[in-house]
């Protein structure tokens, strides 16, 4: 495991969609090491906090040595990150965990709900680069909260919004039926409730669970496997660790009945 730690300079800050911030940092060794779906533990100097915060690399570019992170302002850590600007330094630890397994063949469908989209720019680039046909299904509350389709060059993008302000009026999971080609592989990230709905829907569509990969979130203490805080239930008994066994996992390795929705909102 090639894990880097150290300071990375923020080289770009933007607002990719409403409410979200994208920070681009420069750290060549880390950028070169990232596999799509992996995450970093970012140190935040927000009042009263002590833990680093896990953020998926939205994308990483070994050539330029850059890594992008996309996040919403939810609480103390993301609030602090959101006011970083060009020239500021970020203390990062990573890349950590397992990314998606991108080495199968055939068409791929991305199902992204809300900020779950943050992990996919790099994933889609890698899938397209492998010559796979990619359909990106994006869901958000409202159109302004959708990451623009041009962030997924080479992929087909379909959108769904809760308020009908863009694309399909309803859940992104509903788009699945229309998007499905032949035995596609599904990659998903989003709120736990959306992932559960996806699993439920795919069961009905008779998509085998093992052809779905999800990127999971759980509260993390360390990000490296030492605190055992990020447990997620396995089928049967026992637990996996989101940080070591995930965050990207085949859906059949997770006990969807015992999973807890740790983050509200």
């Amino acid at each position, binding site marked *: 495991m090639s*894990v880097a730690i150290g300071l990375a300079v923020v080289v770009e800050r933007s607002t990719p969609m409403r409410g979200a911030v994208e920070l681009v940092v420069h750290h060549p060794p880390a950028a070169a090491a990232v596999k799509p779906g992996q995450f970093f533990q970012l140190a935040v100097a927000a009042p009263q906090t002590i833990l680093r915060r896990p953020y998926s690399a939205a994308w990483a570019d070994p050539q330029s040595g850059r890594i992008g992170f996309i996040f919403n302002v939810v609480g103390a850590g993301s609030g602090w990150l959101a006011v970083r600007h060009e020239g500021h330094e970020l203390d990062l630890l990573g890349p950590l965990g397992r990314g998606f397994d991108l080495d199968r063949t055939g068409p791929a469908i991305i199902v992204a709900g809300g900020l779950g989209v943050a992990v996919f720019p790099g994933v889609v680039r890698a899938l397209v680069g492998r010559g796979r046909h990619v359909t990106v299904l994006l869901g958000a509350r409202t159109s302004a909260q959708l990451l623009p389709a041009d962030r997924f060059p080479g992929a087909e993008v379909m959108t769904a919004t809760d308020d009908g302000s863009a694309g399909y009026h309803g859940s992104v999971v509903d788009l699945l039926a229309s998007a499905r080609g032949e035995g596609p592989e599904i990659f998903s990230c989003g709120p736990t409730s959306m992932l559960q709905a996806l699993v439920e829907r795919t069961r009905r569509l008779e998509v085998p669970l093992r052809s779905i990969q999800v990127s999971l979130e759980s509260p993390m203490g360390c990000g490296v496997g*030492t605190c055992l805080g990020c447990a997620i239930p396995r089928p049967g008994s026992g637990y996996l660790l989101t940080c070591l066994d995930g965050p990207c996992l085949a859906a059949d390795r997770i006990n969807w009945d015992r999973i807890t929705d740790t983050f509200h*909102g």
Partner: protein
Amino acid sequence: MAELLDLSVDLGRGLRLRSPVMVASGTFGYGFDAPLVDRTALGAIVTKGTTPTARDGNAPTRIAETASGLLNAIGLQNPGVDQVARLYAPVWAQWDVPVIVNVAGDAVEDYIAVARRLDSTAGVAGMELNISCPNVANGLQFGLDPRMAAHVTASVRAVTRLPLLVKLTPNVTDIVAVGRAVEDAGADGVSAINTYVGMAIDVHRRRPVLSGESGGLSGPAIKPLALHAVWQLAAALSIPVVGIGGIMTAADALEFLLAGAAAVQLGTVNYVRPQAVREIRDGIAAYLEEHDLRALGALPIRPVRVEAHV
């Protein structure tokens, strides 16, 4: 100059550390997962709490951040002593840093069973009895009562010649009484302290955040409390006190050493700054030089009991 400094610590019964900076149980796994740690700066590794048989641990949610603190209710997830002895200990035997196994259980028999299994295992440099884990049914009970604490200590002492630390819980009216009891029962040292029982409530969902309702609080939030416990223990006991609780910086570690701790353990900080072990060790060395002290033994402020003030 630096070479003249003696940072070694003798914890008794042959357990000699080259540095007073250890890593605390539950924050370093079994020594295999923590990346980027400079092992040459480490005094010793204390493993995750280990029970006679493997345990799955608690359901999520297991951890929650609080103001300058971390609540955890892991529930002693561990692979069981057999795997530890068979797979991990042989690797440790090759390492240049002593590994101390943290021992946990629900009953005295559990502690005895783990201790017996480890006693003759190469690679195990010592044991730390966790009589204070707040996350299992009866684990806490031993540490709450001096007699129970003495009983489990004596029982383990009887089956092992390994160096034996007993890790105290701070959730008591009189930690010194428990410390004295385990000293008398044969402990080679006490580790102080384990976490403080606390909880957090999710106001949106209107339920406790942790699946086990309560959990143990660690991190800088508890440092002043832990420091006071160590200050009292160091004045009362004649065995070494290992100071634990909220250490993030060399200055924090020095507070414990000045309070009379023989060594310190770093817990939560390992999650945040993997290089803390090295930074803190070096910071202690720099402080000794700056104050013209040659060895750690010169650090403690004499804990003279101050008369009640006006």
